[in-house]
C-alpha cells in the first residue's frame, strides 16, 4: 500500500536531476583520465564552479553567463593543476588533493558576501507537447536545459573519443605516452587541454548545484559530490555512456531511498542512507567480475608522469 505513493515517472525525473551535477563532473574527469591524468581535485573544481558561477550570475543577472563563468572558474583552477603536474612534474594524487583543499578555502573567501542571496532563476525548457506524453513526458521532458546538455555532452565525448582524430590522439596519449610521443604527438599539450576540459565540466556541475538545484551559495555546499564523480569514472570503466548509467544509478538510489523513507517502508533509515554507496559497489562488482584485467579499460599511462627525455 505504501509503495503506491511512489510515482515511477517522477522518480525517473528526479533521479535525472539528482545525477546531473555528478554526471557533468564525471564526464570531464573521464576525459582527463583518458588522457592519462588522474586529477583528484574534482571536488575543488566543482566548488569553484559553484562559487564563480553564482557570483557571475548574480552580478550579470544571467544564469547562462553564470554557467559560462563557472566553466571558466573550474578551468582556471584546473590550470593550476596542469601547471603543477605537467610543467613541474608534481605527483598527481597529492596535487589533486591539495587542489581540493585550496579550492574549498578560496571559494569560502570569494563567496563571503554572497551568502543569503538568491541567484537569478534558470527557466525550465518548454518542450510543448513532448511534456504531455504520458509517463515519458513527466519523466524526460520537464527539465531545465542543463540536464539535456549533460546528456549531449556525454554523447559528444563518446563520439569524440571513438570517432574523432583528436580523440584518438588523446586516447593514445593516455594509453602509452612514450609511444604517442614517439609518433610526434604533443603529450603535454593534449593533457593540459584535457585537464582544462575536466575543470570546465566540474565547474558546470558545481554551478548546477548553486544556480539550479539548491540554488544558493554556501561554502562547502558541494558536500563531497566531486568524490562521487571520481568514483563514477572508475565505475564507468572510462566509458562515457556507462558514466551516464552510473550517475543515474547513484542518483536513482539516492532518490529511491528518500522515497522509501517518506513512504514509511520498514527498513532502518541508517541502511537506507548508506544504500547508494553499497549498491554502486555491488553493481560494479557484478560488472567487473569474471572479466580479464585488460578489459577493465583503465588508460595505460594513468597517473604516470611524462617527461620527454630527448
Amino acid at each position, binding site marked *: 500500500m505504501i509503495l503506491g505513493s511512489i510515482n515511477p515517472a517522477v522518480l525517473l525525473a528526479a533521479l535525472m536531476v539528482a545525477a546531473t551535477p555528478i554526471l557533468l563532473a564525471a564526464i570531464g574527469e573521464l576525459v582527463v583520465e583518458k588522457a592519462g591524468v588522474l586529477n583528484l581535485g574534482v571536488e575543488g573544481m566543482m566548488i569553484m564552479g559553484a562559487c564563480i558561477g553564482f557570483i557571475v550570475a548574480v552580478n550579470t543577472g544571467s544564469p547562462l553567463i553564470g554557467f559560462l563563468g563557472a566553466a571558466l572558474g573550474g578551468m582556471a583552477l584546473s590550470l593550476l593543476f596542469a601547471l603543477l603536474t605537467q610543467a613541474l612534474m608534481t605527483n598527481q594524487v597529492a596535487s589533486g588533493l591539495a587542489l581540493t583543499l585550496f579550492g574549498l578555502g578560496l571559494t569560502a573567501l570569494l563567496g563571503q558576501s554572497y551568502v543569503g542571496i538568491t541567484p537569478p532563476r534558470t527557466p525550465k525548457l518548454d518542450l510543448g507537447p513532448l511534456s504531455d506524453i504520458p509517463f515519458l513526458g513527466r519523466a524526460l521532458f520537464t527539465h531545465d536545459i542543463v540536464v539535456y546538455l549533460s546528456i549531449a555532452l556525454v554523447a559528444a565525448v563518446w563520439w569524440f573519443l571513438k570517432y574523432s582524430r583528436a580523440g584518438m590522439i588523446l586516447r593514445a596519449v593516455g594509453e602509452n605516452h612514450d609511444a604517442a610521443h614517439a609518433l610526434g604527438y604533443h603529450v603535454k599539450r593534449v593533457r593540459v587541454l584535457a585537464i582544462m576540459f575536466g575543470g570546465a565540466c566540474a565547474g558546470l556541475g558545481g554551478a548546477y548545484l548553486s544556480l539550479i538545484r539548491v540554488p544558493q551559495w554556501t561554502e562547502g555546499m558541494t558536500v563531497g559530490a566531486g568524490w562521487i564523480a571520481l568514483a563514477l569514472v572508475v565505475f564507468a570503466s572510462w566509458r562515457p555512456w556507462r558514466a551516464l548509467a552510473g550517475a543515474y544509478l547513484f542518483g536513482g538510489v539516492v532518490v529511491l531511498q528518500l522515497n522509501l523513507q517518506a513512504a514509511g517502508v520498514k527498513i532502518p533509515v*541508517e541502511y537506507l542512507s548508506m544504500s547508494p554507496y553499497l549498491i554502486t559497489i555491488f553493481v560494479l562488482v557484478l560488472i567487473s567480475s569474471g572479466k580479464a584485467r585488460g578489459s577493465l579499460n583503465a588508460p595505460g599511462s594513468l597517473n604516470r608522469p611524462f617527461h620527454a627525455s630527448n
Partner: protein
Amino acid sequence: MIRLERRKEPSKFWRIANPFLAVVLTMLAGGAMFAALGKDPVAAIRLIFFDPIFSQTFGSYSRPQLLIKSAPLILIAIGLAIGFKANIWNIGAEGQYIIGALFGAGVALAFFPAPGWYIFPLMVMAGAFGGFLWAMIPAILKTRFNTNEILVSLLLVYVAERILAAMALGLMRNPDIPGFPGSRDLRRYEAAHNAELIANTGIHWGVVAALIAVIFAYVMMTRHMLGYQVQLAGQAPRAARFGGVSPARLVVICLGISGALAGLAGMFEVSGPGGQVRIEFASGYGFTAIIVAFLGRLNPFGIVLAGLLLGLTYIGGELSQMILQLPGAAIQVFQGMLLFFLLALDFQTNYRLRLTRGMRI
C-alpha cells in the same frame, strides 16, 4: 627557452633545501593574501609557523599538541605509502580509521566497567583488526572480482560514516544518559584510556605506534623481501609478475597493512584525544594522510616531517584565527599554497632548469 632536464642523480642539495624554500615562498604568497585580507602578514606567519613551538605563552602547551595532531596523520600515511609504492590505491583510509575506532571502542564498551590490564591491548588488536577488515573489502573485491580499489575504498568511507552515526545514536550510546548521542567517555574508563604516557609531552600510545610504524616501514622497504617486491610491483609490474610476485597477495598485504594502521590510528584517537564515539568523530585524517604520504615522498622519515609540518599549520592556523581573526578559509588557502609550493619545488630534485635555444618542447 627554458626546459626541464632530468638529472642523472636526484639532487641531494635540493632534496633538503626544497622544503625550506617552499616554506619561504608560502610565507611570501600567504603573507600577501593575509595583507589583502587586511591582517598583519608578519604576525599571521609568526602565529602559524613559530608560535606553536616557540611562543612563551603557547609553546609549552602546543608542542605536545603537535604530536597529538600529527601522530594519526603519520600512522595512516606510513601504511598508505607502502601501498602507493606498489600502485595500490587505498583512498579510503578515512573509513578504515572510523571502523578501527568503532572496533576499539566496542571492545572497551563491552568490558565496561571491569578493570584489567588486558583490555587496552585487546582494544589495540580490535582497532587494527577493524581497519584491516574494512580494507579487506576492497582487497578481496579486487583480487576476486577485479573491482577497482579506488572506487570501493572511497565509497566505503561514506558507508563507515553512516555506521559511525548509527553507532553513536544506537548501539554504542551511553546508556546512563538516555536520548543523547555519543558513547561513554573512554577517558573516564581507566582500563581503556589511551592516556599520556609522560605528562605534558603529548606522547600517548598512538605516538609510540606511529614511531614503531615508521621504523617498521623503513626496515621493511629497505631490508626485507616484501619491500623489494612492493617497489618492483610499482615500478615494473610485469617484471614483478615474472619474478614470482603474486599481484593478488600484494594487494591483500598492502591494503591490509594500510587498513590496520588506519584502524589503529582511529582506535588511539577514540580512546585518547577524541574521547568518545560521536557522530562527527572523523575529521578527515584519512584524506589528509594521503597528502602527508606524498609530501613525505612515500619515505617513512619524510612522512614524519610532512606530518609534523602539516600538524603545525593546523595548530598555528587555529591560533591565527583566534588572535588575528583570520577567517578559517584563509588558513585552508594558506595550507593549499604550502602544499603547492612543496610539490612544485620538488621538481628541482629530479630535474634541472636549462636554458636552450630554439622553441622545441
